[in-house]
């Protein structure tokens, strides 16, 4: 039987990918960011997930304003890193797990979560930056990846509660898959940031730290945060944090906090990172 072994939560700031790709990781500004992921890289090398489900958002790359799926699950064999206007990131092609992905899609749809199945999708920094942070710069990514794209570009995104419950449905789906697979689930995006308009540059560390605390010890508190509160308190684009709740929902209510890291800024954004594991029964 497949099982969810851990949740990884991290920002996916594009400038982090650019810094890595352009060999700037040793600069003090970027060392402050990358240094916070050294322990995480060691941890994931030990945990060795077979599959990572990566909850992320597309930033007008695969989806324009023509089609805006609220939840879209990547069921393809592979996903090509996209050209986001600066040229594609020099990272490995993302290999999917079409069988498990199709199983999850069928299972959650019958569980009344009507997500969109995507059989072709280029993936942008929202997906590849978290992989780079956790796995560094390998020739191939060390595991299969199932992308789950969540709309947070066109208001309204799904509610925190909906995201959390989808996470629970995904867990049920994974646990009903017959093959023994170790699955990690990533919640990405955030933390506080606003990159649009005259209020750009907004950071709210107090909000972010309280969100990290809630995620670790009292997820229901985070689930209750309303869209307008994210936007007002954590910046218009801070609403990306709802995606962390999908991953959180796939874990037990009580978890062990393995690791936490927080720093301001990476470019325009507060960088938050958390690793949670289910308690061993």
């Amino acid at each position: 039987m497949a099982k969810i072994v851990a949740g990884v939560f991290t920002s996916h700031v594009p400038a982090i990918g650019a810094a890595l790709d352009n060999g700037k990781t040793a600069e003090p500004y970027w060392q402050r960011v990358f240094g916070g992921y050294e322990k995480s890289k060691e941890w994931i090398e030990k945990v060795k997930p077979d599959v990572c489900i990566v909850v992320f958002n597309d930033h007008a790359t695969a989806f324009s304003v023509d089609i805006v799926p609220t939840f879209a699950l990547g069921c393809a064999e592979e996903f090509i890193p996209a050209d986001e206007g600066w040229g594609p990131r020099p990272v490995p092609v993302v290999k999917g797990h079409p069988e498990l992905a199709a199983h999850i899609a069928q299972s959650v749809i019958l569980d009344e979560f009507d997500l969109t199945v995507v059989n072709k999708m280029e993936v942008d920094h929202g997906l590849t930056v978290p992989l780079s942070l956790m796995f560094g710069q390998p020739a191939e990514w060390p595991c299969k990846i199932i992308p789950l794209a969540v709309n947070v570009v066109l208001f309204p995104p799904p509610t925190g509660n909906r995201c959390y419950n989808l996470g629970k449905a995904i867990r049920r789906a994974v646990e009903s898959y017959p093959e023994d697979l170790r699955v990690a689930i990533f919640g990405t995006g955030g933390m506080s940031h606003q990159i649009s308009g005259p209020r750009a540059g907004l950071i709210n560390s107090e909000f972010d730290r309280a969100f990290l605390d809630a995620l670790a010890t009292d997820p229901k508190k985070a689930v209750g945060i309303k869209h307008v509160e994210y936007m007002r308190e954590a910046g218009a684009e801070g609403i990306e944090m709802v995606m962390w709740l999908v991953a959180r929902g796939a874990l037990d209510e009580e978890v062990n906090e393995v690791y936490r890291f927080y720093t301001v800024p990476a470019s325009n954004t507060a960088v938050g990172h958390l690793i949670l594991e289910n308690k061993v029964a």
Partner: protein
Amino acid sequence: MEKPEKEYADIPGTTIFDADQSRKGYGVNMFCMSLLKADNRAAFKANEAEYLKAFNLTPDQTEAVLKRQWNRMLELGGNIYFTSKLGATDGLSFQQVAAMMTGATQQEYADMMLAGGRSVEGNRRKSEWEHKNG
């Protein structure tokens, strides 16, 4: 029945990209989306006004794009994840575009970020900005 005020309408310095904005800005965003292809970036660079004709922009939207009025593009229905592709075409990073929208120089903006970013205090509601400016 009158349309109720949007609950996020009183967040200052912010245009939330909702269905109304999306409808208004369809052409702006699809133009920006076209810039994901290198050939299109080259064609746009070669003759910006001519290239824009294919996207049915309003005169205001056309002017905002040609003059790189980043905030006005958002007000006229653009979304930052789309307009940033125009920034990329100009060789600008997200942070450079963000700095322009705040009216700061890039150095001032980068310094503000390094010092912890723009505080949420005084930046939650439009009434706080009116107070600041008046």
